[in-house]
């Protein structure tokens, strides 16, 4: 099939596409770097929260669990200290109920 595009326009398109491909590769590289960074920060965050909770163990430990849950973090074993967001968690709720601690939110 023949094309109506002049030869130089075709050439310019090829160059523009190559440039776009290069830029996309850069964006992908940056996304990968950011993903790795986010993962590292998530892990660090979890470690720090575990340390904070461990420091608060004792009489106030149970209340800290409730506080942590109400602040939007998981307290259930599978997701402990991870961000829970606004929605409730079946396992946190069951865990707190079993300990006689009813969550506020």
């Amino acid at each position, binding site marked *: 099939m023949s094309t109506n595009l002049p030869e130089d326009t075709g050439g310019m398109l090829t160059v523009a596409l190559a440039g776009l491909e290069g830029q996309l590769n850069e964006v992908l590289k940056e996304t990968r770097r950011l993903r790795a960074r986010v993962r590292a920060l998530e892990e660090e965050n979890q470690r720090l929260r575990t340390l904070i909770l461990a420091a608060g163990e004792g009489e106030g430990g149970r209340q800290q669990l409730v506080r942590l849950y109400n602040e939007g973090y*998981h307290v259930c074993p*599978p997701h402990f200290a991870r961000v829970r967001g*606004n*929605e409730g968690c079946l396992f946190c*709720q069951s865990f707190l109920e079993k300990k006689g601690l009813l969550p506020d939110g």
Partner: protein
Amino acid sequence: MHILCPQAHLVNAVQKVYRAVATTTTYPAITGILLQAHENTLTLKATDLDLGIIYTFPVEVIEEGELLLPARIFTEMVRRLPPTSLSLKSLEDNTVEIAYQQSKVQLNSIDVSQFPLLPPVEGNFSFSVAITALKDAIRKVTIAAGNDDLRSVFNGVLWELEPGENRFNLVATDTHRLAVYHGQPGDSSSNETATALVPCRAMNELARLLPGEDGLVKITIGESQIYAQHEGLTVYTRLFNGKFPHYQQVIPTEHICTIEIATRDLLDTVERATLLARDENKARAHIIILQVGEKSLKITSEAAEIGHLEEELTAEIAGQPLELALNGRYLLETLRVIDTENVILELLAPLKPVVVRPAGQENYFCLILPVRIG
């Protein structure tokens, strides 16, 4: 390698294995499809190292051998070839010639030795399941699986085999809801219970690949892999290592209110209510309110910038009046997989999980955790 086969058969085979082809290019060999011609059959294999799909079908083998072809171009090319008999022949210069009618196309191949060895089907537990039941179970359970973190156990479906009870269970949860399906296995190789945590993606691929007809699929649970086999098809996937939480403890053992209502009516209402509940405030997005009266169920939703909806549905209600709020999207997704005319909602308290189950069927339920509002 040299084979002859109809284009339609090859397209069908390629489309079956294509979904397991790796999309990244870090290891080029797994972006290909391996073709092995042996004793008048052609076997196609693809894997991304987590999921693997193998499909064998009869062809005319003129010369046995194997080939590794770049998946994308091979699939696209085969799909576009005319519906006629094809000849696939490997040439000396590491290319393959696909001949059809008076034409031919030549594609570069990849070094076959680079393709990973796929694990043999082995495991201590194997049993068979009716295809229709398995597809039904996957459709109903995967709605509750998480999809935020692909590494999480919540992105998996727990498969429990209980030969003593003559039962298998599929369970999934994203921590806000939980779906459980009980099915009956056919023959089982062991009397011991077994569990496997299978990535949700693999379950969906299996459901997609199995035919929509009667028949049995054989499941084998290995140390770190699970295999499903049906006729010429084998699907295997790596299992998640993590531990699935003790889900039984979150299932309510009692309720104070039961609602039986027409599934279609409730679905339509929830669809409208959820459509409206698109609050820009994420915490309130998709939230709908259920008010249970003596003889009717009232559903309301609102969004500050959009409007307000209030619908009242006739229902058979037993128990105490109750009001609760939940994510309408979760209820909608559950209602969409319930096939019975009526659905039952069991409620205990405003913040306790709501149990949704098909009326007259004991093999499935979904829990939805309400949200606190106000």
